């Protein structure tokens, strides 16, 4: 259990003098905040800003607090913010286990055991040495989720992670992702334009213009 809290304090992002978005919110442990808005409303810029790779052309103000500490001055890899993209983005040159191992903290104990257990847990027991290129879309999404969890983040960002899956599969993966994140007690921000995502997330919904 993580019990972290993610806070965005008066965050404002603009490009070329034009303000893209403004947001102020608090996401508690296991809560999922949904941010909705049409394309071009700056949803992806918000996630890039929190994760730490907003392009230098953007101007930003405000602060991001994790458990009360401002993380804005930290490099992306020090922020401990997990991110799921639209695509699973499993590294194609590593095996499934290699992808998971890449994410685990250096001093983690019993890595191989943790990997087998994790795979078992998401219904992919024995997939350790598989080539990620041979996985189905749903399997790859599960591995991507497990990779994020094994990294032990303090907060999670979801960038329309179900939008490329077909309806039935997205339903299934969505349930899995939300259950796991809630069970881990991670504060989560979900960016989407799909109403079904927002409803199932069950948390507060903010709409960008």
């Amino acid at each position: 259990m993580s019990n972290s809290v993610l806070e965005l304090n008066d965050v404002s992002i603009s490009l070329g003098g034009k303000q893209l978005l403004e947001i102020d919110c608090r996401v508690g442990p296991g809560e999922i905040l949904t941010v909705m808005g049409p394309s071009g409303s700056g949803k992806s810029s918000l996630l890039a800003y929190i994760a730490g790779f907003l392009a230098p052309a953007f101007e930003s103000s405000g602060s991001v607090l994790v458990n009360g500490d401002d993380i804005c001055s930290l490099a992306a890899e020090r922020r401990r913010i997990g991110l799921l993209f639209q695509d699973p983005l499993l590294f194609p040159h590593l095996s499934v286990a290699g992808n998971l191992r890449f994410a685990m903290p250096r001093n983690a104990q019993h890595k191989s055991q943790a990997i087998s257990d994790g795979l078992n847990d998401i219904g992919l027991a024995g997939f350790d040495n598989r080539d990620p290129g041979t996985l189905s879309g749903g399997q790859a999404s599960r591995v991507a989720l497990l990779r994020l969890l094994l990294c032990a983040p303090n907060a999670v960002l979801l960038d329309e992670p179900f939008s490329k899956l077909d309806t039935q599969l997205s339903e299934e993966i969505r349930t899995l992702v939300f259950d796991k994140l809630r069970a881990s007690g991670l504060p989560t921000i979900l960016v989407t334009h799909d109403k079904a995502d927002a409803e199932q997330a069950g948390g507060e919904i903010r709409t960008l213009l």
Partner: protein
Amino acid sequence: MLRWASHSLIFLLAAPILLGTLIASLPAFGYFPPLGSSEFSLEAWRDLFEVPGLTRSVLVSLISGILTPLISLALVFLYLASATESKLDLWIRRLVSPLLSFPHAAAAFGLAFLIAPSGLLSRIISPELTGWERPPDILIVNDTWGLFLLFGLIVKEVPFLLLMSLAALPQLQPRHRIEVARTLGYRATIAWLKVIAPSLYPLVRLPVIAVIVFASATVDVALILGPALPPTLSVRVLSWFNDPDLNLRFLAAAGSLLQLGVSLLAVAIWLVLEKFFSLLWQFWLSTGNRETGESLAFALGRSAMPIVLLVIAGSLLALLINAFAGPWRYPSALPSSWTIQHWANSLSDLSIPFFNTVLISVSSTLLALIVVVATLESERQSGKGRSTAMWLLYLPLLIPQLVFLFGIIVLTEFAGWQANLSLVIVGHLLFVLPYVFLSLYEAYRQLDPRWTQVASTLGASPLKSFWQIRIPLLLAPCLTSVAIGMAISISLFLPTQLLGAGRITTITTEAVALTSGASRNLISVWAIVQLSLPIVGFMMALFIPKFVWRNRSGMMDTR
């Protein structure tokens, strides 16, 4: 550290070349303390202009400097205008890069052995068609006006310009434009020449100018195919430079400056031609002509490229036959018997140059790869595009090699350095760097930035994601650019010859040295070794990723 690497790329390229060019001019005006002359004078220039046959040498250099790019570019454009999606075209496109890796010297030898009066072609058609029982007494190779040199350069530069054009074409969306023009009633070939050619030319302008400079100042190709009495300016400058009489150094210095002037003049004439063609095109476009000339352009374009390919294939064949030929009486098409004696005889002579070639090409290419990757990585991390002028990368191709290498030699003599292997490696680095950069730049830029972002959200430091994510993902393009870099290094003649002071021998310098006097059989053996080395490199670049990623299906489409 990385920022330093980024600046060092420019420094590595620009400083020696600009400094070398500047310093080359000192002895031309009589200032050269190592030979005890520290007074400025114009004596070298007076001597230079009294050299017999100088005008002819300059003219030949100038003519090949202008006609080579003009004819090559015309052939490439006509080919592209008439190209379709046929099997032949796909095949030609696939052949372009391996053809490019043929070292100039080996290609030139092959061409000479194919077309010389006693060469393969003349043997095949004799005596039935020609009635020749003995080789005809005509000067084809090494003709006095350098026409055969011109022919050889065109055969070598057409694949280069074709590759450059093919790389630039996609951004013009040619298919779409042609469709629009065709709906307006233009025939396909005319449409290409009218709507694609004018926008494609600016994109291949720098490579074209590099061709002008190379063709007007080449040494190795001119030694093999060029006129002998008098030779081209570049060849004469080299012979003055290598003359045991050290006083000819002043003449060589003045000559190399003249060479720079000739190359610049060729470029200037080209710029005038550009204006002329631009006016011509404007007029032609405004006529609204949709069909006239279509069949001629189509026929020229369709036949040019297969002919160039056939000539190259024939040259290769001529080399292979010569390398294994036993006794071979003149009009017979093939030798009466085959032998490996020429190989057995060369084996002991080959070993040291072979070792040097591999050592020099591997070290200069790996150095180049490190500098280029560090540059690209620092640009990626700083999030800035190329701020430094891209054209600086072309500098080693835009200034005649002879000129700035000459200056670098003068510099080392001022400093009292001995010619040695490391100097040769650094010299090769100058020529390898641009090609490694240009070949890796696109791949590095096109790598999906999300791979790095995912890695950093998983807590990977920039260093970790560089070594564990980006380098493995870019393994294939890195190996390809290594193969290209090694091919360039292997083909270099002048930098090895000059910076090694003739004491460091490679396959290429030895092969070119065989021009005077050695048997065709022996030369063919060396030329085949020379052109096999780059092929080995390209094979490795192709098969290593296939082997390493044999269980990683996703690695096939991230390239």
